[in-house]
């Protein structure tokens, strides 16, 4: 067994080799190969933001789902002194009664993506549960460091809750949801809503969330150089957001929710993550700390899953992971 010494701040248990990828996911990961950058550094960010013909941006027609959903885009006031925030609103066509809503915060390591990134599963839920999806476009790092991105997300959430009547949304049934960096931002806005007396959220759905700027857990070390969004990429993302402060003593929990000392009084959480990814340990720890604080959380760790493995939707593990998300939402929203 190879062992690696653990950086300061972590346990002293020896770290074993990386857990194996699920065979089906591993084959798909290898087949995707050049779709994903080998090594992500700050200077690659502009190239990563270029349109990729093999991952085309969703069109308006894609979002409308053959007329099942109505689409509107709103510019709403951003944080004090900052530009407006763009909200993409998808609503089941012809429904006038107030509906539950997913407030979606996209992923992309804090550095790429827009409010159409990662929307297809949200739109599946919109059709399945007849709910509204509001997806926020926030400013990206490094051009906009912390707290710009998370304050944009919070401003969009506060506006959505305040205008729920106009939007046909039931204000008691708003769930924040996001994957990866979006999951970290969703956890952060849940903390902000609690601390600022903001919208009362029905739930927080954190899909393989990016929570901890210290980037030194056993899983982060174990998976270095492997899979999707490894130690180096994570270092790049957090550095873009926090600059020199990354990993230091003065990082806000609204930037890195793992830094929060109090995880009580939060809405019910859904957290899922793969066992073979950087975020495994910080996500498991976050769920444990919610329980330790007396809160409600559901945690799924999918064996052999790499970061964002649901990008291979046909894989057996992905099908089960998506089914678990659906069943949590069903229980949450059908009270």
């Amino acid at each position: 067994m190879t062992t690696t010494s653990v950086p300061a701040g972590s346990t002293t248990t020896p770290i074993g080799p990386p857990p194996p990828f699920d065979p089906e996911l591993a084959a798909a990961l290898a087949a995707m190969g050049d779709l994903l950058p080998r090594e992500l550094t700050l200077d690659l960010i502009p190239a990563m933001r270029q349109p990729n013909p093999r991952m085309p941006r969703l069109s308006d027609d894609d979002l409308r789902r053959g007329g099942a959903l109505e689409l509107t885009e709103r510019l709403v006031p951003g944080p004090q002194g900052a530009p407006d925030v763009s909200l993409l609103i998808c609503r089941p066509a012809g429904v006038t009664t107030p509906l539950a809503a997913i407030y979606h915060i996209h992923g992309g390591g804090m550095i790429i993506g827009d409010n159409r990134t990662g929307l297809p599963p949200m739109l599946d839920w919109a059709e399945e549960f007849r709910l509204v999806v509001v997806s926020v476009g926030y400013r990206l790092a490094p051009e906009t460091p912390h707290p710009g991105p998370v304050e944009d997300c919070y401003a969009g959430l506060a506006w959505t809750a305040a205008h729920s009547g106009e939007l046909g949304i039931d204000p008691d049934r708003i769930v924040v949801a996001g994957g990866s960096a979006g999951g970290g931002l969703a956890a952060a806005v849940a903390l902000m809503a609690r601390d600022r007396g903001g919208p009362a959220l029905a739930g927080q759905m954190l899909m393989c969330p990016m929570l901890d700027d210290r980037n030194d857990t056993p899983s982060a070390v174990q998976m270095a150089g492997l899979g999707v969004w490894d130690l180096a990429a994570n270092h790049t993302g957090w550095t873009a957001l926090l600059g020199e402060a990354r990993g230091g003593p003065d990082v806000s929990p609204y930037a890195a929710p793992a830094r929060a000392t109090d995880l009580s009084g939060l809405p019910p959480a859904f957290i899922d993550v793969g066992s073979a990814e950087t975020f495994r340990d910080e996500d498991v720890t976050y769920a444990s700390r919610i329980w330790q604080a007396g809160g409600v959380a559901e945690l799924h760790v999918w064996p052999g899953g790499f970061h964002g493995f649901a990008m291979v939707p046909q894989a057996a593990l992905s099908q089960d992971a998506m089914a678990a998300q659906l069943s949590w939402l069903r229980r949450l929203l059908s009270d």
Partner: protein
Amino acid sequence: MKDLVVRLSALDPDAGAAVRVIAYFDQLVDARAGLATIVRGAAVLAGCPARLADRERGVDLRVGSDGRRGAPDGPPDPSWLSTPVAAGGSAVLWLERPGPAGPVEVLIDASAPPEARRHAARSLGLPESGLARAVALEGGGARIAPATDGRDQEPWNPGHGPGAAAIAPRAGVGTAVPVLSLPASWNAARTALRLTAEGTDEDPGPRVVYADEMGGLALLAGNVGPATPPIPDVLALEQAAAAAPWMLSTLYAVATTASLRAAAAALRVHHSTLQDRIVHAERLLGWPVREPQGQFRLHLTLVLHRLRHHPAESGT
């Protein structure tokens, strides 16, 4: 698995994608992934449902193109792409889509480049200097058989594989030509197919027609189809056919045999029964069918009737 991978890659014009597909399955096999995972990979990559059927082991697994498992709805269609999973084993992997253009389709396609046709001929083991026939099967199928100078033995029957049939399929057999001229043989075969019949009382006639033996009927076939207005003789034949179930088969026997004795034997009826039928038929048709001239007129009418009901099929 290897054969499947090669076929999958043939569906994709992007060579880079083909390499990724092969690597994908290689890796699944190396990791000893389960059968369902491999079938799922086939379904998702091919963009159509895939099945694994193994009668000996009682396996019948179907995965949709979205990767979800479901129950098979009916037996596999023989026209789908399939490959045995292992030589000599009973497990067969199916993709629920017709096969891509194979060497047979390339050889009968006049627009295919000569080099592609040479390659296709080699893959079928046909020497470029040799003669071959194209065979048009009912339903649009095509076969190619090596030709000799004489009438070849059942060129429509490949003798193996899912197309092997106990009774001869309806087939038009093309002319014997050099392999690079097979598109011409194919055209002749399709014309010959229009002159075939079910071989039943309702549709009497030969199930297999050789283009070599069509003679002037080929010209007729080129000019008569469902849209051609029927001449009075054809209308009279169709009215007569509606009068008695034995009418068409009896007239076909009379038109194609050398004597009434031979016709009665072919129909397995007594000579006097045949005499009664002919009297009845002649009254309905309005012309005598026993003299050579009337017999020829009857035969021509039967052929025109057949062509009216067998449209030229859209080409391959």
